[in-house]
Structure formats: structure tokens, C-alpha cells
């Protein structure tokens, strides 16, 4: 103890010294340079690692954009991996295909074939393209650090490094194979622009991001309301006299500037496809898919499906429970006889072990239609957006962005577990504002990253993904705890929930290991093969508990805790 107090004294003294000779030159400067090089080494070592079908998907897109004229891009269907990203991404692929060296070309990288035939050269080329395009993420985050205020620098630095070292990007981009680092860089650029109150830039970057990957559409309500309220509407000097004055509410000049920028981006994006727009949009929004994936993303529907499975087994095993329930719930909502349940199981062929069907049917619980899922998403996004209408501060904006992401992740139709980045990345910018947000952040990031583990099902990735995620969590949970601001209302923290969250997070470790162990025993005992779907189910149900509780916690703070959201005047 004496050592620490001594150190404190030293630190205080040091701080005073700092204040005395506070030359602008000696401003603390944080660089991501070393982090880039260090992570580069690991990423290059991961070259020979497993890659998913997404690798062939992107290879196919390289081929399509390189070999075919622009108007055929969205019609081509030799391979089942058709182009289903917006045109900017297609341009990006075209741009990269210009740099394909001859070795890689001969390797079969640019052949339009049903299933890609390629070797090591293509792997190196594509993996390198991910690494190079990801530099943008570093540049944007370095910009974010450089622009942040002096007293926020450390926090910004921690946020930035937590993003670039994120296990999400490592797993999804550098092993599984996608270009999320690059795509999220553009989204982050818009967040940074919003922080600097450069709204035009914010709108510009967001629309570019949207034209690269349409999953960002889930965040559109938040951006719309934020830019509307902060940039377009002029609330401050507005006095309501008659309805004619409503015209004065709008700053027409700003509206045209913003609208012009956004529309011109969309113009550049979609204008070359003007005669093929319906085809482009059917590719972008395939509605034929089911509610959940084969592996349920850890969201609300995972719990829902899980409940259905449990209920089915229970009702078949315990007839008297069934009888009791039949008295409470009427027929169309509830199967009256056991035969009906069994016939439903036969009909849908969805007895839990396959999990490969495109459409998901529920046996006991009511079916979910796309409309319901959209209504739920919309409703919760609306709740997240309304406070922004009253208070367009940066904190509020990030909060609502996170909640929008969460709402769409939890209730969206056919959500992929990779979409959790849409929650975690904005949340990283928010969490430094207040210590109480940390519990929520810890829950969603640990559960979210762990839920990505089944993407890499090969055993040789097991240690890399678990150890990397573990050490990331240890480092960043610790550093964030040290550097986040202690909020004014710390007394109002509910410690019980904090403890519970910690127990939950620690519980992830045995879960991951036990499931891996069961997987290993599959070769030995045939009985464990039945558990193939079960282990995935445990993953998604356990992780969804974390994500949902994080959402509840954040929503509570967002809607009912007002000191947290006040902008501090310093």
C-alpha cells in the first residue's frame, strides 16, 4: 500500500510539472504504428489457416468484375456465390482485380467457374488484399486519436487499439475471410466526423459505407435523425407562431448541401446500373431466406427457437402438462393433441438435429413472419432514436447507434452472427464515457466474440481463437476499467448485476472448453454425434443471454439515466 501512495504522490507531482511546462509540442502523442506491424506478423502467419466459402465468394466476385462488362455483374450466376453486395463493393473488387499478378491469374483466381479451382498464390493474393485494405482502419483510427482532446487521448487510444486488435476482425477477416476491417473503417470515419461535428463529412462517409455494404442500413434511422436534428433543423432560434413558420425550422441551405452529397454518392453508386435496378435490388435483398441461420446467431430468436425445442420435448414427454396448457390456450395457437405435434414434426422435418433447412418452423410456438421481425426491429430502433431527436449530442448519437445495431441484431430477419460487430464497434466509442456502461460492454463483447467461435470449426484454430479472445478481453476490460470516467451516479450502480455479469463472462470459458471436448469425443463415441446441433445451440443460447442482458442494461441507462448523457463542459 505504501508503495502505491508513494507512486500517487509522484504522479501528482508529475502531473503538476506537466501542467507547468505545457508546451503544445509535448502533447502526448499516440501512434498505432507498432500495433499495425505487430498484428501484421500474426496475420501473415495465419495465411495457411482455414478459410470459409466466403473466400471463394470473393474470388468469384473478383472474376466477375474483371471478366464481365459492368451491366452483367448482377446477372451472372455460373457460381452459386452471386454478387450480392452493393455496387461500390463491386467497384472495389474490380479495382483489386486490376492488380492481380500473372502468377495468381494462372492459378485460377479470375476464372468464372461453379467452384473455384485455385492454389496458394490466390490465397496469398486475397489475404494480402484484406491486410492492405485494412490499413484504412488504422488511418481512420489514427485520425480519431489525433483529433481527440488532450484529456481524452488515452481513452481514445484504448478504444482505437481495442478495435484494431479486435478478435472479431481477426476471426472474421483474417481467418474466415471478409473485408470487414476496411468496411468498418468507413463507418468509423463517419462516427469520427460526427464527433467533430462535421456533419456533411459524417453523411458523406455513412452513405459511402452504405454503398459498400448494405448491412449498415440497419443504422440508417439513427443517422437520419441525428443529421436531421443536428444539421438540418434549426431548433434553437425557432419560435412557433403559426404553421407557416415550420418552413423556417428547416435550414434549407444545409438540407440541400447534405441531400446533394448523399444523393450524389448514391448516384455514383447506382447510376451505372440504372436500367438494371430491380435485378440489383433482388440480389441485395434476398427475402427467400429463413428467420435464422443453420447456426442461430445469439439473438432473441435463438432463445425463441430454444424455447420451442424445449416445449416440444416437454409436451411429448409429459402429457399432463400438455392437457393443462390445452385448457388455457385455444386451438389455432396451440396443438391440441400429441399426434398433432408429431405430425408437425414430421411435416417440417425440423427435429433439431439437422438445422440445415432454409425455412424455420416452430412446432409449439407461433410462427414468426418477416413482418413481425421487422416491426419489432423498427419499434426498438424507434425507441433508440427518439431521445436523439431531443438531444443530438455525440454521446446520444453513439448510444442510439449502438442500440439500433442491437435492435437489428436481436430481432432482425436472418441475422448472421458476424453482424455483432455492428454493435460492438459503435459501443467501443461509447463505453469510455462512463464506468457503468462497462458491464454492458463487457457482456456484449465477450458473448459476441465467443459466438463467433463456431465460424472456425476446425480444431487447429481452437487455441488461436480462444487464447486471442481471452487475452483481448483481459487487456481491454482491465484498461477500460482503469480509464473510463467514474460517473457521478456511481452509487446508483447495482452491484448485484455487475457480479452476475462477471460470473456469466467467466462461465463462457468452461462452456467453450466443454463443448470443444465433446466435439473431440465425437470420433470416439457415436452418441456424441447427436450433439452436433446441441453444441451449437448451447453456444447461441448462452451467448444470446449475454447479448440480451447487455441490451437491457444499455437501454436502461440510455432511457432512464440522465446524468450519464450530459455533455461535460470543460
Amino acid at each position, binding site marked *: 500500500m505504501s*508503495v*502505491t501512495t508513494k*507512486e*500517487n504522490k509522484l*504522479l*501528482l507531482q*508529475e502531473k503538476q510539472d*506537466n501542467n507547468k511546462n505545457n508546451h503544445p509540442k509535448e502533447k*502526448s*502523442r*499516440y*501512434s*498505432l*504504428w*507498432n*500495433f499495425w*506491424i*505487430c498484428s501484421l*506478423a*500474426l496475420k*501473415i*502467419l*495465419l495465411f*495457411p*489457416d482455414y478459410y470459409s466459402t466466403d473466400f471463394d465468394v470473393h474470388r468469384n466476385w473478383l472474376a466477375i468484375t474483371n471478366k464481365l462488362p459492368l451491366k452483367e455483374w448482377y446477372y451472372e450466376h455460373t457460381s452459386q456465390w452471386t454478387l450480392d453486395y452493393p455496387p461500390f463493393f463491386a467497384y472495389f473488387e474490380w479495382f483489386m482485380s486490376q492488380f492481380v499478378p500473372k502468377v495468381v491469374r494462372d492459378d485460377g483466381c479470375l476464372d468464372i467457374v461453379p467452384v473455384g479451382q485455385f492454389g496458394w498464390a490466390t490465397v496469398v493474393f486475397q489475404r494480402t488484399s484484406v491486410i492492405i485494405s485494412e490499413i484504412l482502419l488504422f*488511418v481512420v483510427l*489514427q485520425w480519431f486519436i*489525433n483529433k481527440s482532446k488532450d484529456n481524452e487521448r*488515452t481513452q481514445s*487510444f484504448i478504444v482505437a*487499439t481495442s478495435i484494431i486488435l479486435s478478435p472479431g476482425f481477426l476471426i472474421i477477416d483474417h481467418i474466415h475471410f471478409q473485408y470487414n476491417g476496411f468496411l468498418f473503417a468507413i463507418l468509423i470515419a463517419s462516427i469520427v466526423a460526427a464527433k467533430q461535428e462535421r456533419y456533411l463529412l459524417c453523411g458523406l462517409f455513412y452513405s459511402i459505407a452504405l454503398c459498400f455494404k448494405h448491412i449498415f442500413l440497419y443504422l440508417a434511422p439513427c443517422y437520419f435523425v441525428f443529421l436531421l436534428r443536428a444539421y438540418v433543423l434549426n*431548433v434553437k432560434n*425557432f419560435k412557433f407562431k403559426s404553421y407557416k413558420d415550420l418552413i423556417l425550422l428547416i435550414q434549407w441551405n444545409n438540407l440541400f448541401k447534405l441531400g446533394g452529397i448523399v444523393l450524389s454518392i448514391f448516384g455514383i453508386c447506382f447510376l451505372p446500373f440504372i436500367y438494371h435496378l430491380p435485378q440489383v435490388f433482388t440480389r441485395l435483398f434476398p427475402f427467400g431466406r429463413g428467420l435464422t441461420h443453420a447456426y442461430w446467431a445469439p439473438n432473441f430468436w435463438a432463445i425463441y427457437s430454444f424455447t420451442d425445442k424445449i416445449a416440444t420435448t416437454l409436451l411429448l414427454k409429459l402429457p399432463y402438462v400438455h392437457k393443462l396448457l390445452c385448457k388455457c390456450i385455444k386451438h389455432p395457437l396451440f396443438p391440441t393433441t400429441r399426434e398433432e405435434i408429431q405430425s408437425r414434426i414430421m411435416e417440417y422435418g425440423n427435429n433439431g438435429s439437422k438445422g440445415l433447412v432454409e425455412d424455420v418452423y416452430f412446432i409449439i410456438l407461433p410462427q414468426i413472419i418477416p413482418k413481425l421481425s421487422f416491426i419489432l426491429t423498427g419499434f426498438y430502433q424507434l425507441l433508440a432514436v427518439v431521445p436523439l431527436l*431531443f*438531444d443530438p449530442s455525440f454521446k446520444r448519437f453513439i448510444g442510439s447507434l449502438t442500440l439500433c445495431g442491437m435492435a437489428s441484431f436481436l430481432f432482425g430477419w436472418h441475422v448472421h452472427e458476424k453482424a455483432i460487430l455492428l454493435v460492438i464497434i459503435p459501443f467501443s466509442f461509447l463505453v469510455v464515457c462512463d464506468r457503468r456502461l462497462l458491464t454492458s460492454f463487457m457482456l456484449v463483447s465477450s458473448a459476441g466474440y465467443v459466438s463467433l467461435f463456431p465460424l472456425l470449426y*476446425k*480444431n*487447429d484454430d481452437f*487455441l*488461436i481463437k480462444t*487464447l*486471442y479472445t481471452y*487475452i483481448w478481453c*483481459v*487487456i481491454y476490460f*482491465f*484498461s477500460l*476499467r*482503469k*480509464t473510463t*470516467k*467514474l*460517473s*457521478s451516479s*456511481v452509487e446508483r450502480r447495482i452491484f448485484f448485476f455487475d457480479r452476475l455479469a462477471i460470473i456469466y463472462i467467466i462461465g463462457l470459458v468452461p462452456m467453450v472448453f466443454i463443448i470443444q471436448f465433446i466435439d*473431440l469425443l465425437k*470420433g470416439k463415441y457415436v452418441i456424441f454425434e447427436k450433439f452436433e446441433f446441441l453444441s451449437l445451440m448451447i453456444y447461441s443460447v448462452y451467448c444470446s443471454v449475454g447479448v440480451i442482458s447487455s441490451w437491457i442494461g444499455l437501454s436502461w441507462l440510455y432511457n432512464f439515466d*440522465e*446524468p450519464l448523457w*450530459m455533455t461535460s463542459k470543460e
Partner: protein
Amino acid sequence: MVPKKKTLMKNGSTSTVTSSSSQKSKVEDTKKSKKMNNNQPLETETSKESFYASPLYDFLYPFRPAGSQWMTEYIIVLFAIIIRCAVGLGPYSGFNTPPMFGDFEAQRHWMEITQYLPISQWYWFDLQYWGLDYPPLTAFHSYLCGKIGSFFQPNWFTLGDSRGYEGQDLKTFMRLTVLASESLCYIPAVVYFTKWLGKRRNQSPIGQFIAVAAILFQPSLILIDHGHFQFNSVMLGLTVYTLNNLLDEFYAFAAVCFVLSICFKQMALYYSPIFFAYLLSKSLFHPRLFNIPRFAAISFATICTFASMFGPIYFFGGENGGITNLLQSIKRIFPFARGIFEDKVANFWCVTNVIFKYKANFTQEQLQLYSLILTIIAFLPAMLVILLYPRKYLLLYALSACSMSFYLFSFQVHEKTILMPLLPITLLYTSTDRNVLSRVSWMNNIGLFTLWPLLKKDGLSLQYWVCLILSNWLIGNFSFITPRFLPKVLTPGPSIIQLGENYRRPTLLPSNWIWKVIIVLSYVMMGVIHFVDYFIEPPSAYPDLWVILNCTLGFGCFVLFWLWNYYKLFSMTKKNIHQL
């Protein structure tokens, strides 16, 4: 807008609360986040740090405060394991090359013969196909690993049927056994060793951890164990445990550890003169004459450990009788029937063989004798120094001099044997003298360079380059290349520590200018040899020309280092542990 006003009013009412509590929070902040305030480097403190401003220092800097030091160890060890896993994704020796495959197949084969055959058969079974030629502890270790593997997947190790089996899961399992063995043996031993020395020498905690990291990121061991596939880390780890026990003055335990090390891999005998001299001197001459209890304890421990290792071989000797079995195992362990060197290796015999063909002019026995004499002459001074001055701080220099002598002059040396001298040399990263550190890092690079032909054959060139560059970059060997041409927004350089405007990064070179020239020149030649190796086909009359060049360069550097090492060893006898 009405709600806005309301919030404003609320702000006013709660402002008192917030201001007081924000003050409190500020105090708490300063208490808890020392990291934020440590932006100013304390010149007095940092100038002592030998790796100041290197990327490793930069990464570990935030964890300097006492409250977060525990993290540093986790971070280093876990990242070391992650890097090893990532290297393990690459191919292994003999991948996809029937009929003989390589070291990977040898280890797998041993896991099955130890499992399915009685001990009496271990050293006899099908000697042509990777017959067991390591001491008993390796066999026991293989037995254990094989049993665990068979629990998961019996057809990985079915004697006969599984010959040349190469499955993805088998590879994962085998990589895991190496990783687990290393995590149990080598890593804790190194951490303990570094901390022990660091504490005695009043090194700052961050300095100790940087030394740990520099040792654990030594590329040669990572690439040979996790890329090429071997279990060297077990033997080396046991040797470091021996050192730890000597530091703590548990002599009998030291003897046990060292015997175990020998019984895992006979190569550990390269260290034996030094350990023998040290133990002998400690028990017979220092600090008092004839410390008989200690001597008895050491001898008893040594004999018991040997007996327990070789006992099973004798007692379960089967029909041939125990003695025959024992002799067979020893014959297998010391293969004097093989040539003076195998493949191309950067030692005296192989390099001078270019000028003078030994095999044509001398018989095998003559060569054995000459190499023995040369080796003894080479290591004898180091042994005598230890015999006269059994000091802890001399051990590392003596060990490296001795094992380097063996590497340079002894019989039947592999290129992988360079790991033996590299261990004590790498452990010298615990030194704080930049003259020593620079030579250590130079030796590590040259050592790895001599492994290049082997790693290239294994298809590990990607891993080779990444590990070479990463390990050098981490300890700041590349810090002098800071790109200034990049736009201001990128700010290349250290992340957290703030260097003064005119802080000049020291290059990791010794202060003596002759050595500077030698080291830089050797690096340039390394680059040239790599260049010609990659771009130019060797002349058809000398297909091994580039490899010979590689060995020659390696040999030259090793000899220079060896001489310097002797000089250092002699001059250190008058110094103390703080001047290590």
C-alpha cells in the same frame, strides 16, 4: 423546444452534485489510471532500461504500475503461445513426402511403438524406419502423448496401419503436444530464471518482462519445434530448470533436472562439462573443502535419476536379457556409425571439408578421435574457469562457450544442434549491457540463418521471414528505420512512450567499431546469400553452393562469437552479478 430547457434546468440543479462527485472521480482517476499520466518519460529511470523505446518496451509500458504488472506476464506468455500456434499452422518436416516422411512421422511412429510394443522391443523394432534413437525419457514422453492421442482417435497410432498417416486432426494433436510440453517445461523455467536474475540485479520489472519476451520470441526454437516439429523445448526447459536450481542452490535437484534433460535428448550432454565442473567445484572446493554431504546428495540424485530412467529398459529387457537391451539403447542413442556431419552444417568439419576432404583421407575412427580431441581442447578452458570460479553469473557464458565448442568441433552435428548454444546465448538477454545484448541478437539472427536451408526444405519460408523480422523488430533492431516520409496523420513510431525531439534511437550494435563492421557486414552478406538463393540457380557442378556459402558465413560468425565469448568469460571472473 421545451424538453431541452427542462434538461438545462435539471443540469443546473444537479450541478453541485456532479461537480463534487466529478472531483472525487478525478482523484480516483489519478489513483487508478496511472497509465494516463505517465506520458513524460522519467529520464533517470528510463536511461537504465536496455530496451528503452523498443516496440516491446512500448507495448509493456502501460502495464508498468505495480497494480497491473501481473498482466504483463500473462500477455507475454499468451502471445508467445499464440505465435507458436500460428507458426504451427504451416507445414512440418516431411509433409507429404513418402516413403520416409520426416521428423513429424518419426515422433508419431515413436508414439505408436512405445504404446504397442513391450519395452524390450523399443530399441529394436524396424530400425530402418525411424527406429527409436533418443534416450528413455523421450520414449516415456512419447508413450504418454500416444496414450492421450489414442484416447481421442485410436487410428492415429495403430502400429503398421498408420505408417505415414497425415490427417489434419493428427497434425493439430501433435502440435498441441509440443505446445503443452513447452508450456510446462520451457516457458515457466525461462520466466523464473529471468525474474530471479532481474530481482538480484535490481532490474526494473518492465526490464525483466522484456527479457522474458525477448527470450520467448527467439525465432529458432519456435520454428524448429512448432514448424519443423521436434521436442527440443522439453530438453532445453529441463536445462533451464537445472540453472534455476543452481541459482537457488538446490544442487541435488539441479542434478536431477540435468539428468532428466540428458535422458530426454542426448544433446544435453553438450552442457555437461560445465554442470559437472560447477557441481564438483561447489561440493569439493567452494566455499569449503570437501563438502561431503552435498557431494553425496548430488551423486545419489544423479545415480537414482539415471537408474529410474534406464531401469525399466534393463528390468523389462525381455528374452535378450536386460544388459543387451540396455546396450542396444545406448548404441542407438550414440550413433557413431554415422558420418562426421550430416547434411550441411555450419561447423568446422563441414566448412573445411570444402578444402580438405576428410572422409577420403581418414577413417571413421580417426575422425572420431580427432574431433574428440579438438572438442576437448575447445571446451576445456571454460570448464577450468568454472572449476576455479564456480560463480552463478559465469554459468551462462561458460555454457555457451562449451556448447558452442561442441557444435563447432564435435562429431555428428546436425544443423538443429545450434539450438543448444543458442539457449545460454539467448538467456543472456537478461543482461543490461548493450554490448552483450547486441551480440546476443546478432547470434540469434545468424543461428536462424543457418537453419534456413532446413526450413526452406520444410516449406516454412513464410514463417521464417515473419519470425525473423518480428523477433528483431520487437527488441528494437529495426527502430532506426522510422519512416518519416509518411503523412503527419500516421505518426509512425512508438505508441505510448513519448520520446524527446532529439532522442536518438540507439541501434543494437556494440560500441566497438570493428564489431560494428563485422556485424553489419555479416547482415549484408546474409541478405546477399538470400538474394542469390532466391533468384539465381546455383551452378550445376555445385548444386549446394548457396548452402555452403550459408554454412561458411555461419561458421565464421560462430567462431568470432565463440572467441568473444571466451574473452568475456575470462574478464567476467573478476566482476560481479551486476555486470552480467
